[in-house]
């Protein structure tokens, strides 16, 4: 078995909506099922089960043997992740046309975990093949550890889960806890339990306890007010000002050294001052707050959860030592090592021993029956403390004080530490108070309290950022197809712009934000899509979705509002990446249709049977377009009362069932040259269908179609027209049989004395596709000038030219064929032969350079 390529599909993909690892696995003959190998494979399976019995849980029931080792690898990679606690379910192995070569796809939740699981699954299969040992426990521990490392922590995780439940898209921006919700101008960010509107100043204030106290006092919130005192007399004076009982402590002291609490008499205060002043020069006298520690969580202006926090403690039984009692407590299965469980083991460390020492105990003391022995001063869950949910008990006055505290400091997510006897009564009544406010509070004690109900904290955070009904999404239109994608994308984007939306657009020539190109080159993949969705100034996105990106990484978004498929036709780029047939290609192009939102729309070309069939895969509704309203697909669509666009009487007609919703005269759409350029009419119908689905008004659509400009500067290489000495020049980037057919059809309507064409062939197409191009041209042009492409993409010198020539054999119209080296020379050669009234189609290759060259020649003429 050999693994030749591993990819991470980070978005919805060919196989499923799940993020997955995809690998190309080659199995030898012995490793795939045949009568000859069956025994061997059976024993392999036995050895595999021996090493990893749980694999049985994810395999088809009762399988005595598997079709190949690749299949075993699939289940092993899935099973290892599942056993390590990752919630994964999807996996698949698919044969390719090459015998013994499989595509193995296994879902992951965290990419590094998925990759590691896959590698470990390979080792496992290898071990089973070679009958060598495999340390399953160690492997699972590694996976678990990595998973815990890379997956979101419980606080962030709870917020992300709440977002997912609200259908709000999210994206992790770092390996840490920084997460983006929503897209474009509707994006928001969180980092653990902080929101992007959480003020840095408020956080700094929260860190300054004295300043916080001062501000809370200004807000009328009871705090352990106090001051520094100079001497014992002053300490007693302060105690009287503050009101008894008081705490006397060294300022900024740690570990509770020199702290005396609940002092009620002058003698106690004076004595405490003397003790405290041994530790620090600065001694504070503060109001003593009797009671227990509570944590109140405030989100926005609401109290969302409250918990009582108890320090790690044991209760004496008069028999066991403290060490034994701690061991007993830690034996509780709910107590784990990390953050995964609702309780954490009590740490029996130096701090615990010091805490015991202050109570005159040591590890081997036997506390009397019923004695409460705390092992730490603080009540953190991570050191073994416990949290009991008391949310439903909080008195409204107390809640109001907690909210006031958060508001005063300026924190929108705030953990308020309260000390009081009970939360069931107002603080003032019981001499309680707020001792601290915390930014970015831990949420675990509210999500999974040790005792009591968990609270919907993540939901509260999300609804603070996104009011009900807002899912943080901006309209996303994905466009796929063989031809017309770029024009359709630009047209839809123009319609959005006319609708007042700042638009981001991706395509094969770059990324555009509000018309400004921010990236160049082929940007039709998921990375560019993600970039557009990350941009803060984007209100709507139109994304050309080429097959390369879908195959490589999946989609750059989870759902789109509209998926437009212009056409598949005879296909393009066939034979690459296991996409051999037009049907294979359709599966790739269909991915955007499969991932239309439930309330979204697929806009599909009714005349292309493969495209029309995609309707079945669309979870949302479908709008068909075709010039001919009587096309069977259109007729059926209308009969069912659904939407479609067609051409009638020189108008584009938008109809729903038998109702004509709107008509747009093609004379008002310059792109179509009064409807004479058939493929542009199709593009316009596709774009109009998308705008209709989004809900852009007809007024805006009509205006947008009227003002859309497509020339060499705005749409380089898309049917750019020039006038050269009275002859018509058309430059286009069309490079596949369908595009060339569409161009030929469009040009057929234009009058010309003599027709010539300049063409090269891209080396990465199938031989047949290259020949097909000239075969079409041969029937429509008098003269053909062939030139060799700048990049031969792996072809031998002259090979492509040969194929192009072959296509011209027996051409019905072409009389003259010439071969030229270099694109510029080919263009110049063609231009030199033109007379007024002639027509010349130049199929450009180096688009920008060639157009510049043509423009230069036109200018000179």
């Amino acid at each position, binding site marked *: 078995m050999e693994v030749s390529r591993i990819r991470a599909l980070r978005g919805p993909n060919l196989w499923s909506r799940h993020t997955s690892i995809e690998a190309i696995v080659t199995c030898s003959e012995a490793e795939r099922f045949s009568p000859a190998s069956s025994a061997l494979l059976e024993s392999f399976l036995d050895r595999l089960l021996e090493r990893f019995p749980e694999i049985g849980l994810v395999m088809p029931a009762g399988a005595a043997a598997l079709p190949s080792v690749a299949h075993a690898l699939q289940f092993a990679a899935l099973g290892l992740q599942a056993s390590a606690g990752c919630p994964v379910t999807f996996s698949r192995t698919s044969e390719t046309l090459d015998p013994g070569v499989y595509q193995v796809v296994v879902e992951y939740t965290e990419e590094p975990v998925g990759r590691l699981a896959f590698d470990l699954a390979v080792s496992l299969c290898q071990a089973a093949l070679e009958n060598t040992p495999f340390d399953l426990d160690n492997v699972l521990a590694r996976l678990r550890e990595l998973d815990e490392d890379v997956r979101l922590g419980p606080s962030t995780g709870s917020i992300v889960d709440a977002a997912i439940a609200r259908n709000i898209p999210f994206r992790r921006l770092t390996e840490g806890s920084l997460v983006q919700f929503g897209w474009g101008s509707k994006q928001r960010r969180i*980092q653990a339990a902080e929101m*992007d509107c959480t*003020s840095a100043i408020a956080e700094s*204030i929260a860190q300054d306890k004295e*300043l916080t106290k001062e501000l809370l006092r*200004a*807000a*009328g919130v009871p705090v352990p007010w106090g001051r520094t005192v100079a001497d014992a007399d002053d300490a007693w004076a302060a105690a009287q000002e503050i009101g008894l009982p008081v705490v006397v402590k060294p300022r900024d002291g740690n570990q509770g050294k020199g702290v005396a609490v609940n002092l009620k008499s002058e003698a106690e205060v004076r004595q405490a001052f003397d003790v405290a002043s041994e530790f620090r020069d600065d001694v504070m006298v503060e109001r003593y707050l009797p009671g227990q520690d509570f944590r109140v969580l405030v989100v926005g202006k609401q109290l969302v959860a409250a918990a009582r926090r108890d320090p790690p403690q044991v209760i004496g039984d008069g028999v066991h030592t403290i060490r034994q009692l701690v061991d007993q407590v830690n034996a509780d299965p709910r107590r784990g090592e990390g953050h995964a469980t609702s309780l954490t083991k009590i740490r029996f460390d130096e701090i615990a021993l010091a805490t015991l020492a202050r109570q005159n105990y040591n590890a081997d003391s036997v506390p009397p029956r019923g004695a409460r022995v705390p092992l730490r001063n603080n009540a953190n869950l991570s050191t073994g403390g416990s949290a009991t949910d008391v949310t439903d008990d909080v008195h409204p006055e107390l809640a109001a004080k907690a909210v006031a505290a958060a508001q005063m400091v300026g924190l929108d997510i705030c953990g308020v530490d309260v000390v009081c006897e009970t939360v069931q009564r107002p603080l003032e009544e019981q001499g309680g108070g707020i001792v601290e406010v915390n930014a970015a509070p831990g949420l675990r004690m509210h999500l999974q309290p040790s005792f009591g109900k968990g609270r919907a904290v993540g939901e509260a955070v999300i609804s603070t950022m996104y009011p009900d009904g807002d899912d943080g999404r901006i309209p996303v239109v994905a466009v796929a197809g063989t031809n017309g994608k770029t024009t359709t994308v630009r047209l839809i984007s123009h319609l959005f712009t006319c609708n007042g939306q700042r638009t981001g657009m991706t395509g094969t020539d770059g990324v555009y934000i509000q018309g400004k190109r*921010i990236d160049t080159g082929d940007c039709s993949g998921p990375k560019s899509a993600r970039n557009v969705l*990350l941009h803060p100034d984007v209100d709507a996105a139109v994304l050309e979705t080429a097959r390369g990106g879908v195959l490589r990484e999946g989609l750059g978004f989870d759902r789109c509002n509209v998926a437009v498929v212009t056409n598949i036709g005879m296909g393009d780029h066939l034979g690459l990446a296991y996409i051999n047939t037009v049907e294979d290609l359709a599966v790739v192009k269909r991915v955007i249709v499969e991932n239309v939102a439930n309330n979204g729309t697929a806009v599909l070309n009714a005349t292309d049977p493969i495209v029309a069939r995609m309707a079945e895969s669309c979870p949302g509704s479908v709008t068909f377009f075709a010039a001919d309203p009587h096309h069977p697909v259109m007729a059926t669509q209308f009969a069912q009362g659904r939407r479609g666009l067609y051409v009638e009487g020189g108008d584009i007609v938008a109809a729903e069932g038998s109702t004509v919703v709107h008509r747009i005269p093609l004379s008002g759409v310059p792109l179509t040259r009064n409807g004479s350029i058939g493929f542009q009419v199709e593009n316009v119908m596709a774009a109009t269908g998308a705008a209709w689905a989004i809900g852009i008004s007809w007024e805006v659509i009509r205006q947008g179609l009227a003002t859309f400009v497509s020339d060499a500067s705005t749409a380089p290489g898309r049917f750019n027209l020039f006038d050269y000495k009275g002859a018509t020049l058309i430059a286009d980037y069309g490079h596949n049989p369908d595009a060339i057919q569409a161009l030929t059809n469009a040009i057929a309507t234009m009058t010309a004395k003599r027709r010539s064409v300049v063409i090269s062939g891209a080396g990465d197409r199938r031989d047949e596709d290259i020949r097909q191009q000239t075969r079409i041209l041969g029937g429509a042009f008098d003269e053909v000038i062939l030139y060799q492409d700048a990049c031969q993409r792996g072809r031998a010198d002259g090979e492509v030219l040969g194929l192009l020539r072959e296509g011209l054999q027996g051409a019905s119209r072409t009389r003259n064929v010439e071969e030229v080296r270099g694109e510029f020379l080919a263009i110049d050669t063609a231009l030199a032969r033109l007379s007024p009234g002639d027509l010349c189609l130049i199929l450009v290759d180096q688009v920008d350079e060639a157009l510049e060259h043509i423009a230069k020649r036109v200018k000179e003429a």
Partner: protein
Amino acid sequence: MSHKTIKFLSITHLKGPNVWTYTPVLEALIDIGDLEDCPSNTIPGFYERLSSWLPGLVEHRCSYDERGGFLRRVEEGTWPGHIMEHVSLELQALAGMPGGFGRAREVPIRGVYKVVVTAWHEMVTRYALEAARDLVMAGIEDKPFDVAAAVSHLRELVDDYCLGPSTGCIVEAAESRHLPFIRLSTGNLVQLGYGSRQRRIWTAETDRTSAIAESISRDKDLTKSLLASCGVPVPEGVTVKSPEDAWEAAEDIGLPVVVKPSDGNHGRGVFTNLTTREEIETAFSVAQDEGSEVIVERFIPGNEHRLLVVGGRMVAASRGETAQVVGDGKSTVLELIELQLNSDPRRGNSEDHPLNRVRLDSAARLEVRRQGFEPDGVPPEGKVVVIQRNGNVSIDCTAEVHPDTAETVALAARIVGLDIAGVDLVVEDVSKPLADQGGAIVEVNAGPGLLMHIKPAAGEPQPVGKAIVEHLFPNGDSGRIPVVGISGGKGKTTVARVVTRLLELSGHYTGLACSTGLYLDRRLVEAGDRAQWDTARRVLMNRSVQAAVIENSATSIVTEGLAYDRCQVGVLTNFEPIEDLSKYYMDSPEKRFTTLRTQVDVVLPTGVAVLNAREPQLVEMAELCDGEVIYFAADPSLPVLAEHRSKGGRAVLLREGGVVLAKGWEETKLLDLAQVPMAAGGEAFQAENVLAAVATARALDIAPEVIRAGLETFVLDAAPAI
């Protein structure tokens, strides 16, 4: 007991508008004993000593109101209190806090004076007063006095206690827009505006500066990748672990490169334009010592710029300077640095110097060696040696920035999520688009320093404080909530509580500080006498408070000053003395006038003074008010009312047992006094209290029906709830 010394009997900090002036002052009560018999003209050499120690005193105009006026007084004979006043102001000026207010006044006891000077900060001015005392005594006793030492200590105190320059310039801009401010901490945390209309700043951070955005800006790699995603040009780079790694990365990225620590600041350990393996490996080692990780990135040719973005707009830009020397054929590089660079008076190590002193640090050494010189080498005459590229970014270039670039840096701040950001940009020519010259944004900083824009080494200072204030308070927002200040004699508390009730009824979350306690939103928060500065301040600091009612006892005005700079309504109930102010020497009717007028002095031009027309002294105060005056009177026939009403003035009167709202000669009856439970006892003073409260409510534009409902249901009981 006779003595010829100056003793401080007490020093009082008046923390707000006070009997002397609108701004905080220290009021020192001093006893000069028998120096009373020794005016300055009788002490031989005193004038000379004083004027030579503090030559700047010549600028003090004093009562002659001319240059040298004060020194003329010293020559002609004046007393130590007066001299201390001027000396302490001059010492503060020398320590960088020029200007300010000063007074010296006798009290009715021989040799005892009140010396009053502007308190920039209590600790600073306290020391200035003490130093002034010592200086004056040294002058009197003909002893030496180390002026420089006193000034330098004072300067340290200014640095420790006063606002830093960035915060200072924002606060100054706020003051020039008449926005109130409150320092919330000993540091640079400042509240602008009051109550619910407040905003907070902490140096160049605001309360809307996102903590997450700050943490993103600190993560340079993350910042770069976010910017790159949105098409903002950045230098591509990688984090490297070893010198070999660094070289490999440099080859991948393409030379020349920059090597720098991932989390360093102030340009320490940053090496630019490195082309050789040796340079890169050396730079790695130095950079590693400055930060935890080292980054190798594409070298962006050009000058360093700092562009300040405030609220989505670029508001200022500075360019870095290249420090270079020209050989004279005799001096070493080190000597040339001292001769040609560090001799520039703009260079120094304090915040007042726009340029740092040039130090031959490791990066500079590398730069110099690359040009073929050693620090001790002597460059030939006329040879230019670059010591430091991109030293201080402090040359203003705001006007030159290309609009596309301004837009790009604003986008960068937006991507990171910062409302105020200092964007570091490297580009040859900032007036041309970035793309044409390979310029790039190298960093986005939260809480940027503003000094380079306020005090550029060259070029125009930019009004960045103003831009920040405008960002926080757009479109002329005053940041103010309605503040009602109530003083006078009897009835203050009652009026305060009724007014609070009426504000609450009209939907305002109201804070009340009065002699029965602190109330917030109808709740008694603290019982006891809270007609004090501290409690009033707390009300104004409270972010929930939409309206504040503050009772000021005369004692509080005399000993603490007011808690607010200006108020919407200033109320004086009457002129009856109910507090004993003799221990502050403020018990005469004139002093009482001075005390109570403070309340009228601070009424906003758009505000109202509510005055009892029965009291001639209060009527006299009407002309001191910047805003409107509304009189209230139980006797509608008072002549002053006629005059006031003839000019269209407003008043609230009692006519035939009815409370009447008057505007000019127009009268509208509000309700019968008999309907008001608190006045049911028939006491004249309660009737006046009702009238004062109604007048105040009118001043606050509270609707008559709300006033009526409020008065009819308000019961003044022993329980201190409202």
